[in-house]
């Protein structure tokens, strides 16, 4: 899983040339993200221990223990925003990491290789005094590595490699977040024996993780602090959901792409008042837009759902592309089915269980029947007419059930298109193919609209 740092870029020459009407309030997020990185770069000077972690949104555990944390995916995204992913991927390739491997892992591992000093050889396509190299050099190395990747085995293997790259000397802890298969008769969304058992299983591991943190910091873990941090997170999460709900309005005041740029706060930024302020701002702007009938897309005619991992190199590009055919991507699996999407499960007196449960219901961690049931529910709620399926080449975590999702969409009278791309390797993206398929889908939706 990944978070976004938005990358300004050119707009596609396509459709009516309209561009997405992005929310202004999300800019505050950019400031928060930058402040986060700046404080991280100072972590060692401030005497803080640094955890590198991958996977789900566990930073509240670190925040409550006064640690600094690096979300591997976020770091790669940060570099991508500075166009630094290419040298990292090249570094990975030079060590023999196949292009078909999760490009996120490849970027991160390649980056670690660069961090480990190989940059000096001058073989990695980036000079040591390049501004990007200077940024890269600022990242503090890990004192601990934690992996907490729901569902995807690649996520676990990726950290295994990071652990090896650092000479197997940095203490590492892995939290297993198993798939909720949902095969027993009592299985359902947030219910059944499997749900109960798995929730406790993950919660116990999270508690074990706090013992690991204690062991490697020599300090007692303070669960009251965790409750306090989670108080902000819960508030922010509620505001986010309320703001999302306002997008049932037509035209939709915000789009999937606005929610994409709002992931960082609920994924890896510190749980403090800023999070709440961020989502208060987002909600207020959305509310105002809804009242004034302003859409995220000019003359919204079609409402779409985005399935799959984000194509991080193309966020702005895609936002504009859909806007150019009057299509608003209103919701998505990645944004609407993850990142504290069930805040009411969190009991602030005893937050760990509810946190585990939120981690368990990440957007691909349900077996297909329950996951698709949730997708259909969201599509109905937001009046979705078509599905955009991003077949992200190297991310099996998010492509696994896509054919089943598309079949279900069609059964429910929704159009579906597939387009090829990738999470962080731009070379897999095929713009022409998306253009043709999007035009064809819009035509069919138009025909459907007229017939209705």
């Amino acid at each position, binding site marked *: 899983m990944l978070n976004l740092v938005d990358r300004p870029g050119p707009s596609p020459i396509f459709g009516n040339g309209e561009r997405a009407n992005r929310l202004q309030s999300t800019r505050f997020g950019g400031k928060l993200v930058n402040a986060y990185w700046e404080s991280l770069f100072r972590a060692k000077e401030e005497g803080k221990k640094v955890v590198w972690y991958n996977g789900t949104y566990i930073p509240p555990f670190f925040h409550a223990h006064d640690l600094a944390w690096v979300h591997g995916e976020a770091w790669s995204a940060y570099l991508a925003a500075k166009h630094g992913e290419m040298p990292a991927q090249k570094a990975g390739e030079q060590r023999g990491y196949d292009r078909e491997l999760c490009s996120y892992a490849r970027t991160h591992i390649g980056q670690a290789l660069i961090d480990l000093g190989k940059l000096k050889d001058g073989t990695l396509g980036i000079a040591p005094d390049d501004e990007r190299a200077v940024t890269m050099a600022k990242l503090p190395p890990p004192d601990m590595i934690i992996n907490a990747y729901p569902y995807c*085995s690649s996520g*676990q293997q990726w950290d295994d*490699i990071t652990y090896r790259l650092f000479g197997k000397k940095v203490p*590492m802890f892995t939290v297993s977040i198993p798939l909720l298969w949902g095969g027993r008769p009592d299985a359902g969304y947030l219910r059944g024996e499997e749900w109960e058992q798995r929730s406790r299983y993950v919660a116990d591991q999270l508690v074990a993780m706090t013992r690991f943190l204690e062991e490697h910091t020599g300090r007692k873990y303070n669960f009251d602090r965790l409750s306090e941090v989670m108080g902000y997170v819960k508030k922010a999460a509620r505001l986010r959901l309320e703001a999302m709900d306002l997008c049932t309005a037509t035209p939709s005041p915000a789009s999937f792409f606005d929610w994409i740029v709002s992931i960082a706060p609920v994924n890896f930024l510190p749980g403090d008042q800023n999070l709440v302020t961020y989502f208060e701002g987002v909600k207020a702007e959305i509310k105002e837009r809804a009242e004034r009938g302003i859409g995220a897309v000019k003359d919204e005619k079609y409402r779409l759902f985005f399935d799959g991992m984000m194509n991080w190199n193309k966020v702005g590009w895609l936002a504009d592309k859909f806007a150019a055919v009057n299509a608003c991507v209103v919701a998505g699996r990645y944004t609407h089915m993850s990142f504290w999407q069930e805040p009411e499960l969190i009991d602030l007196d005893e937050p760990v269980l509810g946190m585990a449960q939120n981690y368990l219901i990440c957007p691909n961690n349900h077996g297909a029947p329950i996951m698709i049931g949730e997708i259909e529910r969201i599509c109905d709620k937001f009046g979705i007419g078509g599905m955009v399926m991003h*077949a992200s080449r190297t991310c099996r975590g998010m492509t696994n059930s896509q*054919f089943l999702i598309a079949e279900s969409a069609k059964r429910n009278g929704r159009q579906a298109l597939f387009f090829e791309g990738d999470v962080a390797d731009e070379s897999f993206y095929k713009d022409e193919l998306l253009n043709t398929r999007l035009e064809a889908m819009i035509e069919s939706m138009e025909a459907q609209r007229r017939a209705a």
Partner: protein
Amino acid sequence: MEDVLDLFEDVAADSLGYARRWKEETGGRVIGVLPMHFPAELAHAAGALPVILQEDEEPITIGHKSVFNFYCGFNRSLIDQALRGKFSGLDAIMFGDHCVQLLGTADVIRANIPGLPILFNQLCSIIDAEWALAETERTFQQLWKELETLIGRKIDEADVRASIRLFNRDRGLMRRLYDLRRNGQIALSARQMQAVVKSSMVMDKAQHCALLERFLTQKRSEPSAVRSVRVFLSGHLCHAPKLDILDLIETCGGRVVDDDLYHGFRFIFADIDEQAPPVRALADWYLSRNRKVPCPTRAVKGADWEQYLLKAVADCRADGLIVLMAKFCEPHMFFYPEIKEAFERRGVPHLLVETEHEGVALEALKTRLETFMEITRRAVAA
């Protein structure tokens, strides 16, 4: 002796055909088992024929509508077989490995064969975690319970122990073959060795054991093969490497003396304790795997595939290593650079061969293999 091998080859070539005939003859249940870590012993103790599901030779056709072409050949083939109705003879499938691609396949099979019970139990993949033993025992207990529900009666502990003993016997016999091959005391081609192991994944165990015992008493000494390059084969998780690749390695001057293939030594290296309570014994067997033959789909600190390989190659006096890697197999792709670097550092010749369900261009591979054999010969001579 040849007739036993022929039989093994026939079963290996058509595992579902064998299962169908077994079912017709015995009226028993056939349970499909997913690689690479499920204890088929439990299904056997339930009176069923456990059959490890295999990639088949058919090109992917109808499966295209349900799986992307950037998934490994095994997953694509499983899905294609499911959609072609090939699993109609199965009474259940034991599913739930950690590989993300297989998790997707489980769902496609569930959606397309709704009546087929899937006993889904995901094993803990961090096998040195402090909770790994408790969690693994819980998983096997759950599987035991689900098998009981499937067959409608209790599975006796004594039956599980008997199955464990039988499976151990079969593994032990195959390991003897491996020893003989390592020591040059038996002439078995890589193709034949694969047939021995692959058929054991499918056949009635008692029958397989009896045939193997007969085979071992009839074995003949290996003719001298002075000029061949001793090769260790590594990798190829979940599904069997194509036979034409194995043949080509040998026609290019190699002789496979050992391997860590799943359709090879990885399948048979460890026995299950026959004295301990069965669930505990199964869990110990599972959790100790990486310390013996490391698997990249599991994580254990301190167990290194590349170190294991360097030692295994030296122990069997192989001259070089050929890594067979199924295209799109992520666990393997993640760990291959570690192997490559370790072998480069040690100066042991090695070659990476990427395989595909659709087959590989044999002419190009032939040239690469010939060059590899030449380099290896020179390295040995130096």
